[in-house]
């Protein structure tokens, strides 16, 4: 199905099941521990071996030699595979750093060997016996120091401009020119990377934890130099990913190579410290923002420049993306520059681009509002735009940022915010409120699905879509149930298997809308097949409801319609030019109240509210869950998450969950989420958009702005830890 004109009325609009607060259909499996995650696949008749990774101890250089004698002779060891031993391997299309093979070391904890043994403990013990001789080279690890060496990246759209920024900024009566920094961040998801690989002849099956089945399948085949058709990937349950499981990772490659060598299925999980330095992270940024405005608050000039770093061949953190679209202003420019750094690969983490971009932009907007003497909600409202400000001929498909801000202000009691920073006190707490807009582009990605109807009237959906904890199982079941007129418990959903039609996968908040649209397309086909089989002339007049197919006075149960042989339909949604003619984005507003301890500078959240305008909400429970999780992640970004670079040794030092501090329950106060009731017919037949990343964008800045409102101390360098506040706090008696 091609989607190239706005959606009109369709069966989803009935909203009998879609849009309803239905609990996760996979919830009981998960709470009972019966959902099988990658490392847990276990066939009692299979003699699994356990693999343990050896990571590079240096950040840059070459491997001179690897001595595996002691490791090979250690108890239980079945195979040792080394990076120099396997020689050069091809790199997957989506990988920047190579995962394994050859003698070059590009970053700390790069995989350089895997040891497979009878037990996990034996493998781990033997891995520590692998002796590596390196030729270490000097690397570049410090973004601030490398800033001047940064260049304009070749790919993408590093620069943009409209009007004459310089002239307009020069003459603007009120201006701001500030620099903000965001640190490297780690995805820190619950389930570590893990894979089991089993060969059967030249065919490989890998149970793994992947957000994108087909990307993994393709890149694993490329890396191993085998035919893609010979690779079978399974990833039905994923314990979080946030982007770090978008692209093939070392665990799958090591498991496959070790299994080939050990001649047995091998399980490999990356130990927690390898998450930070072996895989990918959100790159740090330095962002300069300049805004010029007239006295009444209209932005006349806005510029956003961002510097980030990556390994050779990598890309920039697209932190200026939102500034091209979020606020009006005739004269504008954005630019991204990329430095070469010898740190681990920087890549997508939840809301790449907008998450760190909004961390900077939304402080700048707060600062500008203050200079103008305007309420920050009002300043944002004044500068709303219904068209792409760089290309005014392109309207937004649907945009209600102002509705979010107004609703939020009212619900949060924004009018009680003290206008004078540092003036509200509650015992030992300095109390303040902050706001940030939320903005994230809405991406649409082709997505396929197969739908079967059996003689029991049960509908089975098969797609290689993944559920990374988001609720894909549930919204897909709701979509099929709505389309075919059956209750949700008559729908079985099978995901995460490369034998199923290729889907959008999960990432970039495109999965929910795109994958359900793919299921919609397949269901439309199935409806046609049912109608045709029953001899109904015009499928449009056929009603699917209550487990029956009706046309005129004929009613037949779906079970009967399916008959003994059943019915099956497969289709794929593909998106046309609507994304070019119309800018599709999602909008929201974050409001937070913080208390800052007057003595110590400890910041504790008191209340949080998110208002989202993101098209149709397919399921308010799972959508809310996405947003509150994202808000929590935003609190981490604001207050504690900082992957600290050792600038001499070239690695992320705090590489475990004790030292890389994500929020804990005690950090998160009452969270409220409001979804504005809207649809976006330009986005898909589902009229839905992404929600999962929107919930993160703008949160950290809202926290930062609240801290400023509480204390009068403006911190532009994340995370806002107490050491950055303490010297600006009031004297104590």
């Amino acid at each position: 199905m091609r989607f190239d004109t706005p959606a009109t009325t369709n069966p989803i609009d009935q909203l009998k099941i879609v849009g309803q607060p239905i609990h996760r259909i996979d919830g009981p499996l998960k709470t009972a521990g019966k959902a099988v995650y990658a490392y847990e696949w276990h066939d009692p008749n299979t003699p699994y071996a356990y693999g343990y990774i050896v990571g590079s101890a240096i950040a840059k250089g070459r491997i001179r030699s690897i001595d595996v004698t002691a490791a090979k002779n250690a108890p239980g060891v079945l195979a040792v595979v080394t990076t120099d031993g396997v020689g050069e391997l091809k790199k997957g299309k989506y990988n920047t750093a190579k995962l394994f093979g050859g003698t070059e070391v590009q970053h700390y904890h790069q995989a350089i060997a895997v040891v497979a043994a009878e037990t996990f403990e034996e493998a781990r013990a033997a891995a520590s016996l692998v002796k590596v001789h390196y030729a270490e080279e000097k690397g570049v690890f410090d973004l601030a120091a490398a800033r001047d060496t940064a260049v304009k990246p070749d790919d993408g759209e590093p620069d943009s401009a409209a009007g004459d920024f310089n002239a307009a900024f020069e003459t603007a009566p009120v201006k701001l020119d500030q620099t903000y920094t965001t640190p490297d961040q780690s995805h820190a998801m619950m389930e570590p990377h893990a894979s089991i690989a089993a060969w059967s002849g030249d065919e490989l099956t890998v149970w793994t934890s992947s957000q994108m089945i087909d990307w993994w399948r393709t890149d694993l085949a490329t890396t191993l130099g085998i035919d893609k058709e010979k690779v079978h990937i399974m990833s039905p349950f994923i314990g979080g990913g946030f982007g770090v499981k978008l692209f093939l990772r070392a665990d799958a490659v090591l498991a496959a190579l070790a299994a080939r060598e050990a001649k047995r299925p091998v399980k490999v999980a990356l130990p927690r410290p390898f998450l930070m330095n072996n895989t990918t992270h959100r790159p740090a940024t330095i962002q300069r923002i300049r805004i010029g405005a007239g006295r009444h608050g209209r932005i006349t000039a806005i510029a956003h420049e961002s510097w980030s770093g990556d390994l050779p061949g990598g890309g920039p953190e697209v932190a200026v993306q939102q500034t091209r679209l979020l606020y009006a202003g005739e004269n504008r420019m954005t630019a991204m520059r990329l430095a070469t750094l010898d740190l681990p690969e920087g890549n997508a983490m939840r809301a790449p681009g907008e998450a760190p971009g909004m961390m900077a932009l939304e402080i700048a907007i707060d600062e500008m509002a203050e200079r103008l003497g305007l309420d920050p909600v009002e300043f944002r409202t004044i500068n709303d735009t219904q068209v792409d400000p760089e290309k005014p001929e392109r309207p937004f498909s649907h945009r209600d940022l102002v509705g979010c801000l107004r609703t939020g202000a009212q619900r949060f009691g924004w009018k009680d915010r003290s206008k004078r920073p540092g003036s509200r006190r509650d015992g030992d707490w300095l109390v303040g409120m902050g706001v940030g807009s939320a903005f994230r582009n809405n991406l649409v990605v082709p997505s396929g699905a197969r739908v079967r109807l059996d003689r029991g009237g049960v509908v089975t959906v098969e797609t290689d879509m993944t559920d990374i904890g988001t609720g894909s199982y549930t919204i897909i079941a709701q979509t099929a149930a709505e389309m075919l007129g059956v209750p949700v418990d008559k729908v079985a959903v099978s995901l995460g298997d490369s034998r199923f039609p290729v889907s959008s996968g999960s990432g970039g908040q495109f999965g929910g809308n795109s994958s359900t649209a793919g299921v919609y397309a397949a269901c439309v086909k199935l409806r046609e097949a049912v109608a045709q089989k029953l001899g109904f002339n015009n499928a449009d007049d056929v009603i699917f409801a209550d487990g029956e197919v009706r046309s005129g006075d004929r009613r037949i149960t779906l079970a009967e319609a399916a008959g003994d042989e059943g019915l099956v339909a497969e289709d794929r949604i593909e998106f046309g030019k609507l994304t070019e003619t119309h800018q599709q984005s999602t909008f929201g507003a974050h409001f937070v109240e913080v208390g800052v301890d007057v003595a110590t500078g400890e910041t504790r959240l008191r209340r949080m509210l998110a208002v989202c305008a993101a098209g149709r909400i397919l399921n308010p429970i799972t959508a809310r869950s996405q947003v509150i999780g994202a808000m929590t992640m935003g609190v981490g970004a604001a207050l504690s998450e900082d992957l600290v670079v050792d600038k001499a040794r070239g690695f992320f030092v705090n590489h475990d969950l004790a030292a890389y501090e994500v929020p804990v329950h005690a950090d998160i106060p009452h969270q409220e989420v409001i979804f504005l009731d809207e649809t976006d017919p330009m986005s898909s037949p589902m009229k839905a958009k992404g929600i999962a990343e929107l919930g993160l964008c703008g949160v950290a800045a809202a926290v930062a702005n609240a801290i400023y409102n509480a204390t009068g101390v403006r911190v532009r360098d994340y995370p806002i830890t107490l050491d950055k506040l303490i010297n600006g706090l009031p004297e104590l008696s």
Partner: protein
Amino acid sequence: MRAFSYECASSIETAAKAAASTDGAKFIAGGTNLLDLMKLEIETPTHLIDVNGLGLDRIEPTPEGGLRIGALVRNTDLAADERIRRDYGLLSRALLAGASGQLRNRATTAGNLLQRTRCPYFYDTNQPCNKRQPGSGCAAIAGFSRQLGVVGVSDACIATHPGDMAVAMRALDAVIETIRADGTTRSIPIADFHRLPGKTPDIEHVLERGELITAVVLPKPMGGKHIYRKVRDRASYAFALVSVGAIVQPDGTGRIAVGGIAPKPWRDEAAEKELPRGAKAASTRLLADARPTEQNAFKITLVERMLSAVLAEARG
């Protein structure tokens, strides 16, 4: 983790004797610190002596009016004990500020005193660390030192004792009771228990080879207001940037021990004499010899402000 042998000790005497006579032996109590370190091969004992079954899990009154806390009393039980909560509130609060419920259920009194530093370089065996591998250097001093010590540190090591319980015990002047391999016992005031790093940061305490902690003795209750204030970047489940354990008497005199800033709970009786003159005077004295890094210099200000807040809280 390296392979090791394991035994359950049958008495405190045999435990101490076995530990002294077996190369590479170590006691294991709750295992919440030791096992983590063994998995990373930071600790590589070849023999573990399990001391959980030695009946050292009671809290009993002493003839002096204090309490004798068995070495194996779990942190949870100690924090919940009625007498501790009533007469040594500082200790109960310090314990509850540490780790998580699950960990406190396992963690023991002796194990807590002996927990090792949380310096991130100590935890990464690829990095130089004088404490883990004497003579290899210290990566932290010129590296990531925000969490580390500002006072009592040396050019060889700036790591902290990361714990909370010991801070309270230092303020209370607890005494550590041990038995040695030859069967003799001794009492070590907590002030003398942990060693400063000097040139040998790998030696962290005064226990001899095989010496087993049997109990920690608290003196008789000393009244006053008991306050434990722990500051960290998140609200729970993190080690202290700085913690202050205080017992403040109605006349403004008191005891102050500070955690998170030194290789041992930091207390200076001379600084306490300054307390009536206020937080600034006391903290200036307490930190007179501080040598912070650029990254952890904020701890100096933080200590002073925390003292100020604690004194205000004590005044009520």
